[in-house]
C-alpha cells in the first residue's frame, strides 16, 4: 500500500527528490531481520515498519507515531496519514519545499480516503 502510494504520479518525483528509498524484505533479504531488529529496538508494531535516517545513518523519525508510539504501518486513517506527513516534514531538509509536502499530503488523502474502513459505533 505504502509502496503503491509512493509510486503515484504526483508523489513519486517529490519523494525521490527528498529521500533515497530502500525496501528491506525481512523474510527474503539476507540480514533483513537483523537490521529491522537493530533499528527498531524495543518499539512496538509489526510490518510494515519505516524509519528515516540521515546520511550518517542516524535516525530522524520512525513510523512509531508520537506521543503514543504506535506503528502507523501503511498509513490509512487520518491520524496515520498525519504522522506520515510529519515524518516527511521532519526529514525533508532543504530539498523539498512546504508546497511540495502539501502536494504529497493532499495526494495521500486522495489515495487513502477510499481505503478507510468505516468506524464501528
Amino acid at each position, binding site marked *: 500500500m505504502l509502496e503503491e502510494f509512493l509510486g503515484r504520479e504526483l508523489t513519486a518525483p517529490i519523494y525521490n527528490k527528498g*529521500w*533515497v528509498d530502500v525496501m528491506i524484505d*525481512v523474510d*527474503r*533479504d*539476507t540480514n533483513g531481520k537483523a537490521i529491522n531488529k537493530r533499528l527498531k529496538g524495543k518499539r512496538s508494531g509489526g510490518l510494515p515498519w*519505516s524509519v528515516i*535516517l540521515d*546520511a550518517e545513518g542516524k535516525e530522524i523519525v520512525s513510523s512509531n507515531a508520537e506521543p503514543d508510539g504506535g506503528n502507523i504501518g501503511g498509513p490509512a486513517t487520518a491520524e496515520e496519514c498525519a504522522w506520515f506527513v510529519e515524518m516527511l516534514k521532519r526529514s525533508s*531538509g532543504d530539498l523539498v519545499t512546504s508546497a511540495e509536502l502539501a502536494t504529497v499530503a493532499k495526494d495521500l488523502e486522495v489515495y487513502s480516503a477510499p481505503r478507510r474502513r468505516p468506524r464501528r459505533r
Partner: protein
Amino acid sequence: MKNNIILLPLALLLAHGVATAQEKKADLSLDLKKAHARAVMHNKRVLVALSSKGDDFLKELRGNRAISRTLRYEFEPVAMPATAALSAWKWQGEGSGAIIFSASGKEIGRFQASDLQGKEALNKLKPLFCKPVDADKKLADALVIAKKTGRNVFIRFDAPW
C-alpha cells in the same frame, strides 16, 4: 438511408468492441509494466500465467499448495490470455502455461500447464528464483547515495506475506 440507420448501431457496437479490446491490451501492458517494476523493487521474477479456453491458470497455480507460498515470495504474477502471447512471445499453440521473466524483462523459462502440476511445479520453478540480496549492502549503498545527493534515507521494512 434505411440501411444506414440499420448499420449505425452495428458500427457503434463494433467501435465499442475495438475500443474495449484496445483498453484490455493497454491494461495487460500496464499490468506487466507494474509487475516488472515490483520485481525490480522486491528482487523477484515476473511470472506471466497464460490461460486458454476459459481456464484461469493463475488461479490454478495459486491453488497448488506445493507452490502457493513460492508464488507469493518469489514471483510477481500477471494473468494473460494465451492468445496474447502467440505473437508477443511466440507461445506455441493456445494451451495454458507460464513464461518467466527476469525483472529486466529477459525470458528465463517457459512451461506448459502440464509441467507445473503438483509438487513437480516447485522443482521446475526453484532454479529460477532470484539470489537473495544482502540488506546490509542495500543500506550501505543507500547511505552512499544519500551523502552524495544530500538526501535522507527512507527505509521500509516489509515481508511478502
